C-alpha cells in the first residue's frame, strides 16, 4: 500500500462494524484455509424432532451463510453415516469431520464412578455423553494453529441429554411459531429452535465471535423461543465477507507469508500474502466494496 493511501485510510472515520472475530490461545484470528468448510450431521439427529426436519434445519443454517454473495466460502455437506464417528476434537493424521451432533446421554449417568475421563474431559468421546452440565445448550469446539489461526476442525455439540436429577431436558424444535408456553408441553411451538441455534454456532465455526449488534445472528442474547437468528443481519454478512471476501485472499492476523498447512479436514496448501497493515485495513476495503455492491 502506498504511503499516501495509508495516510488517507487512517483519516477516515472508523467503520461502524459490530462483528468480532474469534481469537485462539495464540491470540490470532481464526480462519479456514480452504474456501470449502464441510460439515457432517450425525445420522442420529435428535429424538425431539421426528423425520428429517432437524437435518433440514441444520442444512438451512449452513446454507444461510453459504449464499452470502460477497463471500465465496461454501459449505459442502458430507452425508451422514449410519455408524458415524461421534468423536469431537482433533485427531492428527486421521480424517477429521466437522460434526454437528446431539448428545443424548448425560455423562453423570453414563460414566462408571471413578473413571478418570471425568476429570480430563474425555468422557464425551469415550461414552458418547454430555459433560458440560444441564445449563449449557450447545458448544462449538474448534481446533486451530496457535501460530496462524488456521482452523483444522470445528465440531458443534447440542445438549439433548436428560437432567440426571429430575429427568427434565431441553427440547429442540423446528416449528416456525409460536414460542412455547413453559407451563405446557412443547408441541407445535418453538422451544430451542434448531436452525436458530445452529446458524449462530455455524457463525462461530467460521471464525466469528459475538457482535455488539444486538439484532444480529451473532448477538450473544436470545429470548426463549427465538427464531430471528435463522437469517443473517448485515453485520453478520459484513463479518463473513471481511474474513472470506469473494475472489480475494482470506483475511488473517499475521503478515506475509503465512504457510497454510494441510489440516485433517482438508487444506489448500496455499499461502496468504495479506500484509499486516493491509489486514488491519481490510474492513475499510470491504466498506468501499459494499458501497459499490449490494450484499
Amino acid at each position: 500500500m502506498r504511503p499516501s493511501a495509508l495516510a488517507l485510510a487512517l483519516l477516515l472515520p472508523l467503520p461502524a462494524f459490530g462483528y468480532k472475530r474469534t481469537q485462539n490461545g495464540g491470540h490470532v484470528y481464526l480462519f479456514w484455509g480452504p474456501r470449502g468448510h464441510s460439515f457432517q450431521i450425525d445420522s442420529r439427529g435428535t429424538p425431539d424432532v421426528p423425520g428429517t426436519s432437524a437435518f433440514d434445519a441444520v442444512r438451512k443454517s449452513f446454507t444461510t451463510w453459504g449464499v452470502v454473495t460477497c463471500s465465496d466460502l461454501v459449505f459442502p455437506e458430507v452425508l451422514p453415516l449410519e455408524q458415524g464417528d461421534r468423536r469431537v476434537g482433533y485427531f492428527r493424521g486421521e480424517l477429521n469431520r466437522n460434526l454437528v451432533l446431539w448428545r443424548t446421554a448425560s455423562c453423570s449417568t453414563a460414566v462408571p464412578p471413578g473413571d478418570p475421563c471425568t476429570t480430563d474431559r474425555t468422557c464425551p468421546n469415550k461414552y458418547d455423553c454430555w459433560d458440560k452440565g444441564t445449563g449449557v445448550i450447545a458448544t462449538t469446539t474448534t481446533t486451530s494453529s496457535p501460530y496462524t489461526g488456521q482452523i483444522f476442525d470445528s465440531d458443534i455439540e447440542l445438549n439433548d441429554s436428560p437432567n440426571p436429577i429430575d429427568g427434565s431436558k431441553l427440547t429442540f424444535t423446528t416449528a416456525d411459531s409460536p414460542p412455547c408456553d413453559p407451563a405446557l408441553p412443547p408441541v407445535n411451538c418453538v422451544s430451542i429452535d434448531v436452525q436458530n441455534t445452529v446458524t449462530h454456532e455455524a457463525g462461530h465455526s467460521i471464525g466469528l465471535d459475538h457482535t455488539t449488534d444486538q439484532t444480529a445472528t451473532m448477538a450473544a442474547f436470545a429470548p426463549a423461543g427465538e427464531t430471528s437468528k435463522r437469517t443473517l443481519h448485515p453485520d453478520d454478512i459484513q463479518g463473513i465477507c471481511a474474513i472470506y471476501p469473494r475472489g480475494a485472499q482470506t483475511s488473517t492476523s499475521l503478515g506475509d507469508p503465512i504457510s497454510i498447512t494441510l489440516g485433517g479436514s482438508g487444506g489448500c496448501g496455499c499461502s496468504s500474502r495479506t500484509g499486516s497493515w493491509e489486514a488491519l485495513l481490510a474492513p475499510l476495503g470491504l466498506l468501499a466494496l459494499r458501497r459499490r455492491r449490494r450484499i
Partner: protein
Amino acid sequence: MRLAAALIVSLPAAAATVRGPADVETLAAASEAVVHARVLSQESRWGGGGESSGVIYTRVLLRPLEWWKGGGAAEAIVVSLPGGTVGDLSQTVQGVATFTAGEEVVLFLRQLGRERTGLPVYDIERLALGKFSVGGLPGRPLRAMRDRGSLACQGCRAGEEDDLALDALRDRVRRAALDRP
C-alpha cells in the same frame, strides 16, 4: 493510528449457548458448591491417552479462601476446563471461562470427581456464566464482575447482574444455599 489501535486491541473470545436466567439465586441453586478462591496456576494438557484422545483440557489449580456453599476442607481444588493450547494445536471450546495466575474469583461449581492425589475436581456451572472476577479500587469495597462476552445466553438480559458488590454476592449465595441446599 486509532484505527490500528481499535483493530489490534481485541479480546480473546469465543462462544457457546447457555440457559438463563443469569441471576445469582438461579446459579447458586444449580451449583453443588460456590467458592471464593485465588488462582495458583494453570496448565493445558491432552486428555487421557495423550494426543490420540483428540481433546485438550486445562487444569486450573486454586486455593479456596472461603466456601459459600458446599465444598470442604481441601487446601486446594482443581477446575478442569475443556480446551487449551498444547504445542502446535489450540483447542477452543467456546464460552469456557478463562483464568490468570493470581486472579481472585468466585466460582459456581459442580463436582466432576477427584484426582489421584485426592484433590477435588470441579467444572464451572454454565461455563463463563458461573465465574466472577474479584477486584476493585484501593480503599473501596471489593466487587465481583462477570465477563460473559464469550457466551450466548438464552433467557438472559444484557448485563444482568454482571457487576455486584462482593459482600452482597456472598450474602445472596448463602441465603440461596439455605433455601435450596
